[in-house]
């Protein structure tokens, strides 16, 4: 019998792996920071992480505010992905996040799939930073976007991850 779980507050319901691992099997990435997330120290993601390639690029970005925003976002993404992996979702096979630094010191972090892509546009002015999801005609031309600043990005990323798992 298949087991189902409501992943987020959206209407999408996912099938859980039959070999659902114990919650003790993997440590959450954020646990490596113990209980002091505001200590100022941010440990980089492991090399096999979906965000590690993007992390390396954004860490070398010129604008400190861009680096700060991008690292915060990637840590949140990693935390959510780790949570899903603990629930039995096999996300390691997904394409990694990619990042490019643009001429104006902005950074684009993209998650590219064949029929859709998700982007996070990190600007020196945090009020200008945003995200988008766009899909091709083959996937009904979905389009969604929003701001990073002032948004509940954990909730937004859960929604985006719902879309990824449903349509990858």
């Amino acid at each position, binding site marked *: 019998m298949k087991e189902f779980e409501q992943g987020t507050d959206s209407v999408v319901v996912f099938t859980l792996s039959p070999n659902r691992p114990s919650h003790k099997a993997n440590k959450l990435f954020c646990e490596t920071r113990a209980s002091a997330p505001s200590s100022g120290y941010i440990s980089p993601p492991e090399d096999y992480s979906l965000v590690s*390639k993007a992390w390396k690029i954004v860490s070398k970005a010129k604008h400190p505010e861009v680096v700060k925003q991008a690292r915060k976002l990637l840590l949140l993404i990693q935390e959510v992905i780790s949570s899903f992996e603990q629930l039995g979702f096999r996300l390691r096979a997904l*394409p990694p996040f*990619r990042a*490019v630094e*643009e*001429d*104006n010191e902005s950074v*684009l972090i*993209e998650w*590219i799939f064949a*029929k*859709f*892509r998700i*982007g996070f*546009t990190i*600007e020196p002015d945090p009020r*200008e930073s*945003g995200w*988008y999801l*766009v*899909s*091709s*005609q083959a996937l009904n*031309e979905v*389009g969604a*976007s929003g*701001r990073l600043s002032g948004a509940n990005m954990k909730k937004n990323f859960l929604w985006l991850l719902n879309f990824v798992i449903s349509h990858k």
Partner: protein
Amino acid sequence: MPYPECCLKGINLKDAFSEDGDLQSHIFYFIRHDENPHCWKKQSINWQDDDSAIGFTLEQKNADGSLQFKYGIIVLLRQEIDRLNNRPQINGILSYDREVLPDNRYHGNLLLAAGVSQKKMKMVAAILAIDATEKIVTSESAY
């Protein structure tokens, strides 16, 4: 002169492709600024008016003599650009023109309406990357 079926977007950024070969969206950013902020923003293309257009584009040179589009060119279908312009997320803010130059009779522009925010511009670029790209042509594959 009527517009042909395809236009050509030169690739001049070495990070235009991810390690997996995916075309990244920033290649389609509209970053050319006119003095008049009320003008549409432009990004250069060449119109594929004839069979020579691809070869001409691949051989375009920078001022220092180096190849301008050494990473190849993206072939875009005009019909797809027209269709994308009707997507709710774009809704008429995309266009194109022909702007013949003394040394380039194929030259034109993709256009983005004045006043479009940076966030929206980047979303439009992602839509172009995912849905308008017909194929990539490089010097090796063209001949």
